[in-house]
């Protein structure tokens, strides 16, 4: 795990801090705060929650995921390749008359074509989701925050990154406090002393 690099954009060069991490008490407060952060014009920031908060992408101003296009493409490829394979096998590869039907009996190819289409689409959905989300990312500066373990329990967070053009060490922290954050902290990018234990979690 220690071999993995930090998931910090190159923009981080020269920054001592990853940014500000603020915890909110309720989903409602988080939602409001996200709307305010969005409207304040921040762009390099994120909301971090133990469960998907319904409609938060609207409050954050995120664009819909592009994943469906990928899934459609991989699904059609799976189905197309499946149909091609079966046709080739029965016309070219191993031509054999079975139950008096022609060599190219497309109805009989439907089940396998369908299954391979689903396989392609499902692989596209899962692997595409991993790729879009850059998973696995075992190291992340946020894991350096002790508070942050609550993100998989009951913690609802907003993190604003230091390289956001509007970021300011003090103002941004105060801005988040003003939105009703109950805890605000600065998260270091990297702590060389910490590196030996990997810090992958906790």
């Amino acid at each position, binding site marked *: 795990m220690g071999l993995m690099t930090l998931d910090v954009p190159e923009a981080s060069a020269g920054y001592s801090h990853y940014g500000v991490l603020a915890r909110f008490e309720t989903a409602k407060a988080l939602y409001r705060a996200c709307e305010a952060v969005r409207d304040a014009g921040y762009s390099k920031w994120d909301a971090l*929650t133990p469960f998907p908060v319904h409609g938060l992408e609207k409050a954050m101003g995120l664009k*819909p995921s592009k994943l469906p296009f990928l899934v459609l493409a991989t699904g059609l490829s799976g189905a197309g390749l499946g149909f091609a394979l079966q046709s080739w096998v029965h016309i070219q590869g191993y031509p054999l008359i079975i139950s008096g039907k022609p060599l190219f009996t497309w109805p009989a190819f439907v089940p396998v074509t369908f299954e391979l289409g689903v396989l392609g689409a*499902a692989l596209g959905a899962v692997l595409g989701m991993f790729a879009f989300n850059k998973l696995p990312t075992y190291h992340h500066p946020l894991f350096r925050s002790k508070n942050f373990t609550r993100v998989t329990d009951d913690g609802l967070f907003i993190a604003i990154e230091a390289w956001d053009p509007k970021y300011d060490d003090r103002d941004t922290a105060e801005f988040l406090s003003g939105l009703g954050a109950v805890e605000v902290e600065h998260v270091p990018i990297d702590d060389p002393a910490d590196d030996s234990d990997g810090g992958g979690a906790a």
Partner: protein
Amino acid sequence: MAQSQDNTQEPVAGRAPLIVGGYDFRSLTEAVAVPVERKTPIGWWFFFLPSLAMLGLFGVSIGWLFWEGTGIWGLNNPVNWGFAIVNFVFWVGIGHAGTLISAILFLFRQKWRTSINRAAEAMTIFAVMCALVFPGIHVGRVWVAYWMFPLPNQMDMWPNFRSPLIWDVFAVSIYGTVSLMFWYVGLIPDLATIRDRAKTRIKQIAYGIFALGWRGSHRNWLHYERAYLMLAGLATPLVLSVHSVVSMDFATAQLPGWHTTIFPPYFVAGAIFSGFAMVMTLMLICRVLFEMEDIITMRHLENMAKIMLLTGCMVGYAYGIEMFIAWYSGNPYEQFAFANRALGPYAWAYWIMVSCNVLTPQLFWFKKMRNHIGWLFISSILINIGMWFERFVIVTSSLHRDFLPANWDYYQATFWDFASLIGSFGLFFTMFCLFARFLPLVATAEVKTVLPEADPHQGEELVRVVPAGAGTEPAPQAAPAGGGGS
């Protein structure tokens, strides 16, 4: 533990709570994570060790089969398909409920699914594993089982893609793969929870590797939820196709009793029926063993009972329509096959099937019976017995008296047939015990979304209805939606 609140009465306006016991995010995490983290409870061994013993029996029976050949089974000339295919169809069917709960109920926004979908999906995967064993071992020459896959080989042969048995290979293995992916994607946030709570470095790393560094970023949730939705959308037709394909093993044949067009949807309904019975059995045990009666509540059990009633009626409908059309066809072979089913040498099996599958769930018309834990448990077992017999009836009663009376014979299962059936339960329960011990039994992140405080608009009034006759003036003040904003 006494039920702290009855949530089976759905109010006419509004909705009953899905989970009771006053959980908040933190106590919910605690309730699900603690069984994974604490010392193994004694009760768990009572289930695990017998399962392991049955799994051993499975190993022995498979070993003996490989050594001696399929002659150790009770197969005979007209009945050359026996327990292996019956068990295969049975186990594939069991798996279907998991996908129904995780995918179809998700698409229908049945949020009560969140308490049981994790366990049901796990059950699906283990059931598919059990199912895949049977076609794997029954091919006779197991060392060339890879011929079932489209792999170039030294004899330049290819599988026959026009054979339903090859469709099975694809359908069931892809079903297993997709179910596994679906289950794993759902597990990621919960694995991260266990990682973040871990007290030992080993646990932290072990769960951490599989949690993939998940940190709950909403930019990730966005793609995650979309992927989950699409997986649900894909798993739904997939699950229909799988048992349809399985049904085509029979229905594409010309044998009366096998060849009938209603088989695909009828098999799917039966599969969901039996699968729900299995989920019911497992959940009734788990909720007590892991003290989760307030998360897997009476309401969940009642809803499952309703689905069992629905699918049980669908199965009953199919039995009825098959009988009617067999007569209506005017085809003497069809008519004989069905008369023989109900009145012939296998009538005992037929009537076990009808009473377990059609009559048992009828009691679920009554709320009292849907809320009766004892009856739920008994009926779930009876239904699984009935559904196993359904496949047995279809396979043997159709085969044992075919077109030529000189061929007729009676199929009698041997010790090794039963050993492999019981053994497959060993595999299933062993896997399930391991799952229940080491992984979070409930999809915590998903259950959190159904808590009222997870709704960012909680308490806000989104729509106001002005009743007829109240004039056109909107009511003067809309309740402020809870404060500021820009």
